[in-house]
C-alpha cells in the first residue's frame, strides 16, 4: 500500500531542492543534485500512476485540514499521467542540459539555471496535483516566474524582449484566471474543485458563474497559447536556451492544456461548457485555425527553433481539437497527444540544441550536409520529425489515429480531412530541414564538424526510442489516457444525476456568500 504522504512529494522534492541547488554553487554539483531530485520525482510519479490505476483517486489533506476547508491534493489517472510526462521530460532535459548550457549560459549563472528549472518543475507539479482552484493559480505563477527567468538566460539579447513579452502576456493570463476563480468563489463560497463542481450546477444560468467561466477560459488559452493568443510563444521558444526550449515546449503548455481539461470537465461540466455556452464550436474553430496558421508559419521560417516553436502552436491546436470534439475518444486523443507531443518535441529541440552545440547556429543553412557529419543527431531528428508528421510506427500516428476516430464518431468528416491536411503541412516543414541535412553539401568551413557528445545523445535517443516504443506498444498510453478520460466524463454525468435527484426533492439552491 502506498504511503499517502507521497502525494505531496512531487511538489516538495523540487521546491526544497531548488534553494539547495543554489547553495551548492558549483555547476557540476548543482547539475548532479538537480538531476537526482528530478529523477526521484519521476520515480514518485511512476508510483502514483500505478497507485491511481489500481486504487482510483488519491486524496491528501495538506496540514491535516480536511477538504473542502483546507487545500486538498487530489491525484487521479488524468493528472498522474501528465505528472509522469512532466517529471520524465524534466529528468531527461536536466541530463542533457549540462553540456548544452555550458555552451550557452555563462558559468556564474549555472546554479541559477538549475534552481529556476527545479522551481519551474515544482510549480508545474503543483498545478497538476492540487485540488484547489486558488492554489492552482499560485502554482501557475510559481512555474511562470521561473519560466520567464529561464527564457531570459540565453546569450542572445533578443531573449530579453521575448521573456518580457511572455511575462506581460503570462501575467494577464494568470490574472484573468484569478478573476474567474474569484467570481466562482463569490457565488459558491468554495475553492475546492470537487466542492465547486457540486455547487456550480445550482447556478448554471448565473451570469457571475458564466463570466467567471469566460475569464478562466481566456486566461488558460493565453497560458496554453491557443491561436489568437499565441503571440508570446514563438519568440520565447526561439530565443530561449536550447535545453529550456526542450523543457518548456514539452511541459509548460501541456500543463496548461491539463488545466483547461480540469476546468471544463471536472468543474464546469462538459455539457454546460460545450452545449449551453457554445464553447465547443469556438474551441474547434480556433484549434483548426491554430493547426494551419502554426504549420504554415513553420514552413516559412529559416531559424529551425522558430520552425519548431510555430509547429508547437499547431500541435496545441490538435490537443484542443481533441478536447472540443466532446467525446471520450476525443479527450483521450487530447491526453495521448500531450504525452506524445512531449516525446517528439523534446527530442526535436534536443537535436537542434546538439546542432547548436557543434555549429553555433540553428539557421537552416547550418543543417546542410549534417546527415553525414552528425548522423546520430540527424537520425534522431528524422524519427522525431516523422513522428510530428504522424507516420505509422511512431507515436504521432497514434495521436492522429485517435483524433480522426473521434472526429468520425461525431460524423465530422471535414474535421478528419483537415487533420490529415494539417499533417501534409508538417511534411513540408520537416521535409525542408531533412532535405538540407541529407541532400545538400556542407559548406567548406563546416567540414570538420563531429557528432554531438554522448551526454547529449543519450537523453535524445531515450526520447526517440520512446517515440518508437509507444508507437508500437500503445497499452500504457491508451490505458492511462482512456481511464483518465472516462473518469473525467463520468464526473460530469455523475453530477448531472445528483442534480436531478436533488431537484426532485426540492433542493434548488444553497446559501450565497457575499452581498
Amino acid at each position, binding site marked *: 500500500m502506498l504511503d499517502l504522504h507521497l502525494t505531496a512529494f512531487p511538489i516538495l522534492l523540487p521546491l526544497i531542492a531548488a534553494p539547495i541547488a543554489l547553495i551548492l554553487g558549483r555547476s557540476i554539483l548543482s547539475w548532479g543534485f538537480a538531476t537526482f531530485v528530478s529523477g526521484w520525482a519521476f520515480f514518485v510519479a511512476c508510483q502514483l500512476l500505478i497507485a491511481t490505476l489500481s486504487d482510483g483517486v488519491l486524496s491528501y489533506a495538506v496540514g491535516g485540514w480536511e477538504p473542502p476547508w483546507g487545500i486538498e491534493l487530489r491525484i487521479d489517472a488524468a493528472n498522474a499521467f501528465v505528472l509522469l510526462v512532466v517529471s520524465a521530460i524534466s529528468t531527461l532535459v536536466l541530463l542533457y542540459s549540462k553540456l548544452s548550457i555550458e555552451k550557452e549560459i555563462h558559468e556564474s549563472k549555472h546554479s541559477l539555471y538549475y534552481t529556476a528549472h527545479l522551481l519551474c518543475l515544482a510549480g508545474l507539479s503543483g498545478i497538476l496535483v492540487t485540488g484547489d482552484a486558488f492554489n492552482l493559480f*499560485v502554482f501557475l505563477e510559481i512555474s511562470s516566474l521561473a519560466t520567464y527567468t529561464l527564457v*531570459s538566460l540565453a546569450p542572445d539579447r533578443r531573449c530579453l524582449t521575448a521573456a518580457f513579452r511572455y511575462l506581460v502576456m503570462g501575467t494577464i493570463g494568470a490574472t484573468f484566471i484569478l478573476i474567474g476563480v474569484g467570481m466562482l468563489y463569490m457565488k459558491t463560497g468554495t475553492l475546492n474543485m470537487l466542492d465547486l463542481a457540486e455547487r456550480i450546477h445550482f447556478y448554471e444560468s448565473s451570469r457571475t458563474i458564466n463570466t467567471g467561466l469566460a475569464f478562466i477560459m481566456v486566461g488558460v488559452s493565453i497560458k496554453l497559447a491557443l491561436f489568437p493568443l499565441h503571440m508570446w510563444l514563438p519568440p520565447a521558444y526561439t530565443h530561449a536556451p536550447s535545453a529550456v526550449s526542450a523543457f518548456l515546449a514539452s511541459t509548460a503548455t501541456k500543463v496548461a492544456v491539463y488545466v483547461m481539461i480540469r476546468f471544463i470537465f471536472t468543474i464546469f461540466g462538459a455539457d454546460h461548457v460545450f452545449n449551453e455556452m457554445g464553447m465547443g464550436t469556438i474551441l474547434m474553430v480556433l484549434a483548426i485555425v491554430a493547426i494551419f496558421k502554426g504549420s504554415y508559419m513553420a514552413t516559412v521560417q529559416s531559424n529551425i527553433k522558430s520552425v519548431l516553436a510555430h509547429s508547437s502552436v499547431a500541435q496545441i491546436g490538435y490537443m484542443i481539437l481533441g478536447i472540443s470534439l466532446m467525446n471520450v475518444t476525443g479527450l483521450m486523443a487530447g491526453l495521448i497527444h500531450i504525452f506524445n507531443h512531449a516525446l517528439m518535441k523534446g527530442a526535436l529541440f534536443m537535436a537542434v540544441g546538439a546542432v547548436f552545440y557543434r555549429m553555433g547556429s540553428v539557421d537552416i543553412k547550418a543543417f546542410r550536409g549534417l546527415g553525414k557529419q552528425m548522423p546520430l543527431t540527424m537520425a534522431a531528428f528524422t524519427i522525431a520529425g516523422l513522428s510530428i508528421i504522424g507516420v505509422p510506427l511512431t507515436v504521432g500516428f497514434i495521436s492522429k489515429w485517435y483524433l480522426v476516430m473521434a472526429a468520425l464518431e461525431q460524423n465530422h468528416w471535414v474535421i478528419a480531412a483537415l487533420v490529415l491536411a494539417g499533417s501534409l503541412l508538417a511534411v513540408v516543414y520537416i521535409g525542408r530541414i531533412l532535405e538540407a541535412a541529407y541532400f545538400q553539401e556542407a559548406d567548406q568551413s563546416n567540414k570538420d564538424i563531429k557528432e554531438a557528445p554522448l551526454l547529449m545523445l543519450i537523453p535524445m535517443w531515450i526520447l526517440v526510442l520512446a517515440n518508437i516504443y509507444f508507437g508500437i506498444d500503445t497499452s500504457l498510453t491508451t490505458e492511462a489516457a482512456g481511464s483518465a478520460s472516462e473518469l473525467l466524463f463520468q464526473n460530469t454525468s455523475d453530477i448531472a444525476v445528483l442534480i436531478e435527484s436533488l431537484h426532485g426533492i426540492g433542493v434548488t439552491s444553497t446559501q450565497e456568500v457575499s452581498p
Partner: protein
Amino acid sequence: MNFILDYYNYWIVVFLMMSGFYIVISANNLVKKIVGLNIFQTSVFMLYISMGKVSGGSAPIVAEGITQYSNPLPHVLILTAIVVGVATTAVGLSLVVRIKRAYGTVEENEFENKDDAI
C-alpha cells in the same frame, strides 16, 4: 441610479482594470507597461476584498457582543496574490534593467528596429 451607487466598488474595479489593461497594451515604454500591469492586478485585489464584505458585519476579530463578521478568506487569498504580484513586478523590472543594458533603451519601437538591423 441605485445600480451605480450600490455597486460603486465594482465600478472602481472595472475602471481600474480597464485603465491598467489599456496601459499594458498601448504603452511603448516598458516601465509604463509594468505600471499598467500593476494597476490591472490591483483592481483584482480590490474585487476580492470587496467580495469579502458582509453587510453589517464587523472586522473578522472575535470580540464580545459581535455576532456577524466579514469573510476573512478573500483577504487571505489576496495576501498571497499580492506576493505573487510583487514577485512578477520584480522579475519584470529586472528584465527591463537588462533590456536597457543590452539595447540602451526601454522604448519598444526603438529596440525592435535595432534587432532588425542584425
